[in-house]
């Protein structure tokens, strides 16, 4: 125990960049473990219970409105839990606790980053979204603008974010099933694809919401139990926990201080912006604000979501330190060949899973494995639903049919789209099996903060914004975020195989540049736009402002 060896340190650093850049459920390439029947049975119970709920939800999903937003009848507290369920991914749970396990304090920096987007949504977006929109964020972005171009672009922005986010989830599912259940990669793709399609296809938003609520409760419960068990070992005194961790960890005192995670201030601020404003541009999160009856409940949703997500990140920090104190002293049980230098069995993201066994035995290990996998299922369902809504509500009903469509036809299109998206998700999952997808989640956030967030923000809050300005800015944000990400080390070197040091974009995230470029373009093009259409759009701003601020005329908010 005295000397853990340099190898442990090297191993810890070697996978840090990937995690630091992504915190996607990036399990890397994992090795299949022996079949874990307890975990499989627990997961089967979860699937059974959620499919039973889906059957009930199906009887309530009769119109397009039911499909998109569960008829707007979810309470603020329920929606808060569902948002938390939508947002707390397997990456946050396994990735951040693994990061804490390897580096200590640095994991906390990440947790904080993933939380700070929520106040932005609360203070600036939640209420206005609810007052202006009905089913999708494109409703809000296109409120006073030319419908066809605006909705087409917003749908494109949604689908791009959904695609990147989805690839990360599907590949993560395949890698995780090998270590959690001991099943093959392909089984995960088919399972996730098939079950998720059943939720969304038959139960729409009602089923998706309840799947997310159940998953959130299970994840919060399981993580709370683990954190409590760890604190109990140290008489509920964190100082004792940290003292023991410093004693056994190879980095000693260094785990109590910031390390190599933040290299330069520009990258730090850029990553921070992607997380802070990207959260406010994620289509599957924004759609959740239309499931509550009014602005009051929308605000309550975010307050509860922020509370649960923040609490959860504090738990992952305790869990990471608990893994240090519980796993490192027992290398035979948890490390490859019993050697700490060879890393954790199943990879660096398995810290929380091994800790589950250490504090709760095989049954609890099965429970946590099932929860980690169910987490991916719930996130993928939310993504698919928002992708299907972008196609059926924005592209089909609003652009193609110009709003002249009945609810039954729209519902049919959303279901067909769900099927197609499900198949696409499985296909992408299989296609990207051997690829390094560590950058995908970060790319989804970067696109969300550079394309979706600026057009939403300017359309709602700036009088002079016009269709041309919004679209020009959105295109600039979308293209620059993708291009600059390709030029950064996480893609240029790690994925495209160019030599080390050849990446032409020197920072960890494009957000600072691509988001600024998007805002600047919207401002400039709108200012130069003297067309009659632009005049009309500016004149409509006052009425939009009154509706967004007071809720008069908002969908189902007031009885007329």
């Amino acid at each position: 125990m005295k000397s853990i060896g340099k190898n442990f340190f090297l191993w810890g650093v070697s996978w840090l960049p990937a995690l630091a850049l992504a915190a996607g459920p990036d399990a890397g390439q994992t090795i299949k473990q022996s079949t874990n029947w307890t975990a499989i049975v627990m997961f089967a119970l979860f699937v059974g219970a959620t499919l039973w709920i889906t059957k009930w939800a199906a009887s309530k999903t009769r119109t397009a409105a039911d499909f998109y937003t569960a008829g707007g009848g979810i309470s603020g507290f329920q929606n808060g839990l569902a948002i938390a369920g939508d947002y707390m991914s397997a990456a946050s749970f396994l990735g951040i606790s693994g990061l804490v396990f390897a580096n200590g304090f640095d994991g906390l920096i990440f947790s904080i980053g993933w939380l700070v987007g929520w106040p932005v949504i609360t203070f600036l977006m939640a209420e206005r979204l609810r007052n202006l929109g009905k089913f999708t964020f494109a409703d809000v972005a296109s409120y006073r603008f030319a419908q066809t171009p605006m909705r087409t672009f917003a749908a494109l922005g949604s689908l791009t974010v959904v695609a990147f986010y989805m690839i990360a989830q599907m590949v993560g599912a395949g890698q995780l099933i090998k270590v959690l259940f001991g099943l093959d990669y392909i089984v995960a793709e088919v399972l996730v694809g098939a079950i998720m399609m059943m939720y969304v296809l038959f139960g729409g938003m009602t089923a998706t919401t309840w799947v997310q609520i159940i998953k959130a409760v299970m994840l919060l419960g399981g993580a709370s139990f683990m954190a409590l068990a760890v604190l109990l070992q140290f008489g509920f005194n964190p100082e004792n926990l940290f003292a023991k961790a410093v004693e056994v960890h190879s980095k000693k005192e260094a785990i109590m201080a910031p390390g190599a995670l933040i290299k330069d201030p520009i990258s730090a601020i850029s990553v921070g912006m992607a997380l802070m404003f990207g959260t406010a541009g994620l289509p599957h999160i924004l759609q959740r604000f239309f499931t509550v009856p009014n602005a009051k409940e929308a605000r309550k949703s975010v307050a509860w979501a922020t509370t649960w997500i923040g609490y959860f990140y504090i738990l992952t920090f305790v869990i990471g330190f608990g893994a240090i104190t519980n796993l490192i002293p027992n290398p035979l049980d948890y490390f490859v060949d019993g050697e700490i230098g060879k890393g954790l069995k199943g990879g660096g993201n398995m810290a929380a899973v091994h800790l589950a066994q250490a504090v709760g035995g095989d049954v609890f290990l099965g429970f946590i494995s099932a929860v980690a996998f169910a987490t991916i299922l719930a996130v993928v369902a939310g993504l698919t639903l928002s992708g299907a809504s972008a196609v059926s509500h924005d592209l089909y009903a609003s652009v193609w049919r110009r709003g002249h469509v009945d609810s039954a036809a729209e519902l049919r299109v959303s279901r067909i789209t769900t099927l197609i998206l499900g198949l696409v998700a499985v296909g992408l999952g299989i296609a990207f099996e051997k690829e390094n997808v560590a950058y995908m989640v970060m790319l989804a956030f970067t696109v969300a903060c550079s394309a979706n967030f600026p057009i939403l923000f300017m359309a709602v809050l700036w009088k002079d914004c016009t269709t041309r300005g919004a679209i020009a800015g959105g295109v600039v944000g979308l293209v620059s975020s993708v291009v600059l990400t390709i030029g950064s080390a996480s893609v240029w070197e790690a994925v495209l195989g160019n030599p080390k040091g050849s990446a032409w974009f020197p920072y960890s995230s494009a957000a600072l540049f691509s988001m600024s470029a998007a805002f600047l373009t919207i401002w400039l093009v709108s200012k130069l736009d003297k067309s009659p259409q632009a005049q009309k759009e500016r004149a409509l701003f006052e009425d939009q402002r009154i509706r967004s601020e007071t809720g008069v005329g908002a969908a189902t908010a007031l009885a007329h």
Partner: protein
Amino acid sequence: MAADIYARIRSNPSFHRFVKRRNRYAALMTALGAIAYYGFILLVAYDKDFLARKLMPGMVTSLGIPLGVGVIVFTIAITWIYVRRANGEFDAINAQIIEEARK
């Protein structure tokens, strides 16, 4: 009709005062959240030694831990403070403005 109501709300000076006040409050809270977060991140970038400092001599816990957890708790707290005020005081004024416009 909604259009009439909009016109009456628009000509009501208390509506403009109210929106200004609420937006100023929201901007203030956003700034507080951003200062807490970027303050912490810039400390990480520029003054790692400060965060590594021990809470008290002889302790292992560094100053960075309560500060970091503090940012999380602070974020949750300002969210609730805003939501309570918006759902209480602000919504009451809002309801009154709408009521006046409906007359």
